[in-house]
């Protein structure tokens, strides 16, 4: 071939000899941020991760990711306030992902198909640990300790495990076959479960300490707070949690014509709904808190799952917010009504807030019965030495009780928890901490991780799509036994996972690969070192930042080079 003159030809692709990477002063790096749903979940569930697995068409693997944090997903899907959804970035576009319905689908599939926990049951090489109380906190701790290879003894004073999940939460919200399936599966992990064994009655703290390397206390809070109105108490007073528990066991509940329930938590609202369904015509809830709503201060609203409140209103419960009971109106020993007054929690002179009642706002409510449901404290029997005169245990964020080296505590017994998910998270954290202490590893960090904000996503790449809606029993179909809310079918779940932004993690959209003007994003079939399918070719990347800007999930960050 005739040699062409200088400048007239060049070999194809020889520009690869010129490494444009030297122009760069910022470099793109894959950065896996926590998703808001993940960071917000007290139990530590990573919804982003299991939704992504679902998206790949592997529900079982998705469930396995889920139960790495929370062993009771079919349960929490039904009763948790869904902190994940409250935090979900998708709320800024249309509505949050219905994470609890995806969780519920996976939890129910696991029960239906008998999926086993990804736990090696034969592993028992750790030091023995005893867990006191088989509510969600205790069950979670026992589960995680077994995952980590510790032999576990779990004791509970009651004949069955489950704690308040079994003894207080109505079956219309948590069917017992779901609870039984999840608790049963958990106890089969080689846990030595000792029912009808109460600490303080059947065994002492010292005894348990002697037999185990560590103790995790999760006795919940079972003793009702003392209640009176200016010293007055009706002679036939029954407190709320007791009534609910009795109803669950005996199936009987008092049926006055009208009732006022005093309190602003789950017990008050659940009891109100149970009494209403049992035929009590007028059911009132009197609470010092405000009601949930768009403008409500989250610190000042009823401490219940928001949709439980909505359903209660639907069912005809009358709420009296920011109110307290000032006087009982008695005719002889019979209650005929009570006097309510407006009040609000206000900051006082010393910075501490206190409740202030407003004179001139008194009203009378005619009711035949009043039921206090103002909360519970720890039943001290057996724990006197650890508790002192306090209502709850005092502990550091991972549950370590000050001055008691080998005892950790979690769940409602801490006083500042109050949800099933928080209890499960406490159990997990304590198990990790105990394992770390026993093996000389670094303690888990209970601090909330940073998460990726909505404005770091590129939502141009997402389409609006309506949130899937769960089926729900119509008002007239609601009874004492049937679950009120239903789950989604596979097609609906598929729609819902398709709405997830995959905050902070690559969803393999190809944008960076397609849009890099310099061919500096390379795609791999195998996963790259960081888990994605894309690798930056820093020899050529000029650091323009375009890929980072156009990544829908915020998975690419620019750092100085």
């Amino acid at each position, binding site marked *: 071939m005739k040699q062409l003159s*200088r*400048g007239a030809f*060049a*070999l*194809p*692709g*020889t*520009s*690869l*000899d*010129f490494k*444009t990477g030297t*122009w760069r002063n910022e*470099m793109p*790096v*894959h*950065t*896996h*941020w926590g998703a808001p749903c993940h960071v917000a979940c007290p139990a530590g569930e990573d919804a982003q991760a299991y939704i*992504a697995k679902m998206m*790949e068409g592997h529900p079982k693997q998705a469930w396995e990711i889920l139960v790495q944090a929370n062993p009771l997903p079919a349960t929490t899907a039904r009763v948790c306030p869904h902190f994940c959804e409250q935090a979900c970035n998708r709320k800024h576009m249309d509505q949050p992902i219905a994470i609890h319905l995806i969780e519920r689908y996976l939890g129910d599939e696991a029960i239906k198909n008998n999926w086993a926990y990804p736990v090696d049951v034969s592993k028992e090489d750790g030091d023995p640990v005893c867990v006191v109380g088989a509510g969600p906190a205790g069950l979670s701790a026992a589960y995680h300790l077994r995952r980590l290879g510790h032999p576990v003894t779990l004791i509970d004073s009651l004949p069955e495990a489950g704690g308040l999940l079994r003894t207080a939460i109505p079956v219309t919200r948590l069917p017992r076959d779901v609870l039984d399936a999840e608790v049963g599966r958990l106890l089969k992990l080689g846990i030595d479960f000792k029912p009808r064994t109460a600490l303080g009655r059947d065994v002492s703290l010292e005894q348990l300490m002697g037999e185990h390397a560590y103790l995790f206390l999760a006795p919940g809070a079972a003793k009702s707070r003392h209640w009176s109105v200016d010293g007055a108490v009706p002679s036939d007073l029954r407190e709320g949690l007791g009534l609910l528990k009795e109803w669950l066991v005996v199936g009987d509940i008092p049926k006055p014509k009208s009732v006022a329930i005093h309190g602003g938590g789950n017990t008050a609202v659940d009891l109100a709904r149970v009494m209403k369904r049992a035929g009590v015509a007028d059911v009132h809830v009197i609470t010092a808190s405000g009601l949930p709503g768009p403008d409500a201060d989250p610190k000042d609203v009823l401490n219940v799952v928001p949709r439980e409140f909505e359903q209660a209103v639907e069912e005809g419960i009358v709420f009296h917010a920011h109110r307290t009971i000032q006087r009982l109106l008695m005719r002889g020993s019979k209650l005929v009504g009570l006097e309510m007054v407006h009040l609000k929690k206000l900051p006082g002179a010393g910075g501490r807030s206190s409740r202030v009642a407003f004179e001139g706002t008194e009203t009378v409510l005619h009711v035949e019965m009043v039921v206090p449901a103002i909360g519970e404290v720890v039943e001290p029997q057996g724990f006197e030495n650890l508790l002192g005169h306090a209502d709850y245990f005092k502990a550091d964020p991972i549950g370590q009780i000050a001055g008691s080296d080998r005892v950790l505590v979690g769940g409602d017994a801490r006083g500042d928890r109050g949800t099933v998910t928080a209890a499960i998270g406490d159990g997990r954290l304590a198990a990790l901490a105990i394992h770390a202490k026993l093996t000389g590893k670094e303690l888990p960090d209970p601090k909330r991780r*940073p998460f990726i904000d909505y404005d770091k996503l590129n939502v*141009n*790449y*997402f*389409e*609006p799509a309506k949130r899937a809606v769960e089926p729900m029993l119509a008002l007239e179909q609601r009874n004492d036994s049937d679950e009120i809310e239903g789950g989604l079918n596979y097609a609906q779940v598929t729609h819902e996972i*398709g709405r997830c932004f995959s905050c902070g993690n690559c*969803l*393999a*959209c*190809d*944008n960076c*690969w397609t*849009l*890099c*003007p*310099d*061919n500096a994003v*390379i*795609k*791999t*079939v195998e996963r*790259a070192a960081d888990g994605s*399918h894309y*690798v*930056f*070719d*820093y*020899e050529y990347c*000029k*650091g*323009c*930042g*375009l890929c*980072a*800007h*156009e990544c829908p999930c915020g998975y690419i960050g*620019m*750092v100085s080079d």
Partner: protein
Amino acid sequence: MQSAPKEGVAGQHNMEELRKLQPRYRGLEAGHRACQGCGEALAARLVTEAAGPDVILTNATGCLEVFTTPWPQSAWRLPWIHSLFENSAAVASGVEAALKAQGRSTKVIAQGGDGGTFDIGFQALSGMLERQHNILYVCYDNEAYMNTGIQRSGSTPHAAMTTTSPPGKERMGKRHMKKDLLSIIAAHHIPYAASASVAYPADIRRKVRRAVSIEGPTFLLIHSPCPLGWGIESDVSIEVARLAVQTGLFPVIELERGELTGVMPIRNPRPVTDYLKLQNRFKHLFTDDPRARKEREHVQALADHNIEIYQLRGEGVDALDTDGADTVRRGGVVD
């Protein structure tokens, strides 16, 4: 925040091998000298990706020519020839005639910037179309003569600042309108002409495949932001390109034999200020000067006019409209 290992990632892979294994045709390789975030480099890569490999390229003088072929290297992995600023279409016509004489079916693609197309290469282009050569002509429209330092072209939009249309006492940036090139092309009654934007790669690929499958002259105008010339950060080229389409300032349309046969509908038209305020070349439109306000309204009217004459207003949600066309679906690679 946990960040990926810095060097580890590239280090653990044999990049040279991986580059060869990319599941797409690479007509334009890395190592070219375009500025960071250059829309023209991206557009040319997308065009050759969709058209290659049985293609011969011609190129007018301009950024694309200069940044891809610093002697003795070439970023092209296709036969490519450059002669002059004004004659890309003429050179392509000759190449196509020669291929035809040899009985070969290799497709010829002529390329040029907007200066080389709207202005100086226009008569060569018009001749190429009129003589019905089997050529796809692609114009990378970055709306000024960039390679020589940002001079206004026939394509520079009204009110934009360039070095030869500075804002000042006399006027607020370019006085004249952006030339309506597609209408002139349409008047040649060629089988297919279209506009596209780098913000919508799938749309570019579809249009390129369509155009090269047609026997006869076809034309593609691709809106390609120039970070340097437009005064934008290098990371927002796509963002800016997307806004040009979403405001209606750059209509994405298809013409067959001169008739409008398709548009990318705009789902939610954005105000032109969303587009203008990101760019330094329109900075003077955001001053206190009362003329600034007037010019902003003028640009909005131009966008409204485009929306009206091309009927760009979408009717509800459409998978191919300005919002739907770039929706990401999960799963670029299957496990």
